């Protein structure tokens, strides 16, 4: 085979491989975007995941009862409509409507919003229109309900309100908590460890062993960490499926990455900085805090940002330690501290509910976060390097 043919074949494979990579990337992103885009609505971004049922007290308006042509209910100061499954839903609320000053059982204000569904007034259940649609028209149905409200005009009534879910707010918040908490644990520990390894540790066998250990830790699949976390943090330390269990487990996963990246950064700092500083009579600690660390900030920041990506993308370890409940954790550990991150929810949605649209919508959010992190890490490095004058 002559050389030109060889070159041609080699070139073909090189271009083909590059092409496949780009094609796959574009295809996956397009697939997720196309499947997920219908799922992205304002509700999706702003609502809780689960429906929420609350009993509230509302001081109804006085005066005329009845209902307007357009579904306006004067005593509520709001427009109502028939809800598909049960009760009536609010569609438009006046500015001075009493539902905005609704008070929940604990005495705190629980302002009602559009799409909140009212299912019970005092002891009178509001049947869904489905049940009665054979016997009356929608208008008659709404009129009936208006009459029930009229009875209580000017009085304070207890109403059962169901706020519909379907949003990802809890997962976003949990993800955010997880990022902050994991970094709070992992970043200081690993940066200090890296400083020890690069600046203090005496070169020799021990250091080699430590480096070897770190390299291997970085290679262990995260499910192993998850198993360890679920055994140690969740069970032995009795933290249960919780934010802290998850964050601790993730911190362990992050340690080797941040240590290695930070150490690499510290290694690139010219030794003459250390010598100059020490030569000026600075102590080792002064040298590290005033010269070495400031110079290492860009590298450390990049390490931290990449860790954020890792946390956002982590699934196996969190599945076994932080749980799959779609709620905002109310404590660091214990019963109510469990919470699912976006990734975990995407997984459970597919696995348990076969809800591809919502899973893909979460995928879009994750993509945006990851791309955002990559761009900002690029910008930060560039900016800081410029500042360094390099």
């Amino acid at each position, binding site marked *: 085979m002559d050389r030109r043919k060889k070159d041609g074949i080699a070139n073909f494979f090189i271009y083909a491989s590059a092409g496949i990579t780009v094609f796959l990337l574009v295809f996956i992103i397009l697939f997720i975007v196309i499947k997920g885009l219908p799922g992205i609505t304002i509700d999706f971004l702003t609502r809780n995941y689960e429906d929420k049922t609350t009993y509230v007290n509302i001081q109804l308006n006085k005066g005329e009862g009845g209902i307007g042509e357009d579904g306006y209910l004067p005593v509520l100061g709001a427009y109502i409509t028939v809800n598909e499954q049960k009760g009536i839903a609010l569609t438009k609320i006046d500015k001075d409507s009493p539902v905005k000053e609704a008070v929940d059982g604990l005495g705190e204000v629980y302002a009602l919003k559009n799409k909140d569904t009212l299912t019970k007034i005092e002891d009178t259940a509001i049947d869904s229109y489905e049940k009665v649609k054979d016997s009356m028209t929608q208008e008659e149905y709404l009129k009936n309900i208006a009459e029930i409200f009229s009875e209580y005009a000017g009085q304070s009534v207890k109403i059962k309100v169901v706020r519909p879910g379907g949003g990802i707010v809890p997962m976003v918040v949990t993800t955010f908590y997880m990022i902050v908490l994991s970094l709070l644990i992992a970043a200081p520990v690993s940066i200090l460890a890296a400083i020890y390894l690069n600046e203090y540790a005496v070169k020799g066998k021990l250091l080699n062993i430590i480096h070897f250990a770190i390299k291997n830790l970085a290679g262990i699949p995260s499910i192993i960490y998850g198993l360890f976390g679920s055994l140690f943090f969740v069970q032995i330390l009795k933290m249960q499926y919780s934010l802290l269990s998850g964050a601790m487990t993730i911190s362990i996963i992050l340690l080797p990455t941040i240590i290695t990246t930070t150490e690499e950064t510290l290694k690139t700092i010219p030794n003459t900085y250390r010598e100059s500083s020490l030569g000026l009579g600075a102590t080792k600690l002064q040298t590290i805090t005033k010269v070495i660390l400031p110079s290492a900030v860009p590298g450390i920041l990049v390490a931290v940002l990449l860790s954020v990506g890792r946390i956002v993308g982590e699934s196996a370890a969190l599945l076994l330690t932080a749980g799959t409940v779609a709620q905002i954790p109310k404590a660091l550990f214990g019963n109510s501290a469990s919470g699912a991150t976006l990734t975990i929810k995407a997984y459970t949605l597919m696995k348990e509910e076969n809800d591809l649209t919502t899973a893909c919508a979460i995928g879009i959010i994750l993509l945006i976060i990851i791309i955002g992190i990559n761009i900002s890490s690029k910008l930060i490095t560039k900016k800081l390097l410029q*500042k360094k004058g390099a």
Partner: protein
Amino acid sequence: MSLQKKCKFQVNDLNLFYGNFQALKNINMDIHENEITAFIGPSGCGKSTFLKTINRMNDLIDGVIIEGTIKMDGVDIYSDIDVIKLRKKVGMVFQQPNPFPMSIYDNVAYGPRVHGIKKKAQLDEIVEESLKRAAVWDEVKDRLKKNALSVSGGQQQRVCIARALAVEPDVILMDEPTSALDPISTMKIEDLALELKNKYTIIIVTHNMQQASRISDRTAFFLTGDMIEYGETEQIFNNPKEKKTEDYITGRFG
């Protein structure tokens, strides 16, 4: 020719080992105050190693064993003085201009700050004075807040010299201070060294023996860890006593 000046350093039977390798062999020399002493010799001859023993920079390297004594003003620097104090007295300028990645002002103020000076007015004064002494004030006075890495190599090196001067040392060690600079900047640094010797004792390591001949009062020639010859620069370059010295300075070495 030159008056017998006060002796700043007395080196007695200095031996230095990196593990099993002996980098310095039985060095004995007196280094005089307010003079420029140059160390010349081929790469790996031990001249930089010797320079670094004078402010104990070799302490940073693992496995270094030092025998013999170096006395500064009669005080043994390896046993009777705190290393921080020593390094405050003995400043160092390196081969590559290596300002810290911070402003010119912060670079020069670094030393005084680590030694506990915090007052702005006092720092301002030290910075100005040091930059003036390093003959770079006029060139950088309008950009003190700019990053030190943004000025030219020659200016960076003089900022580094100013940084060393800011802690008020007695001695300045220069480790090939001009090897990374262009000829004009080199001449400026050489002129600066000549000016500084009135106030400081300067020890310079250089690959460039012409540089040693131009600026130094005394020259020591090192070869494979031995100090072959040490004497007044004029004598070394006009009439070296040792054949090896002559071979080296005439470029017939090897």
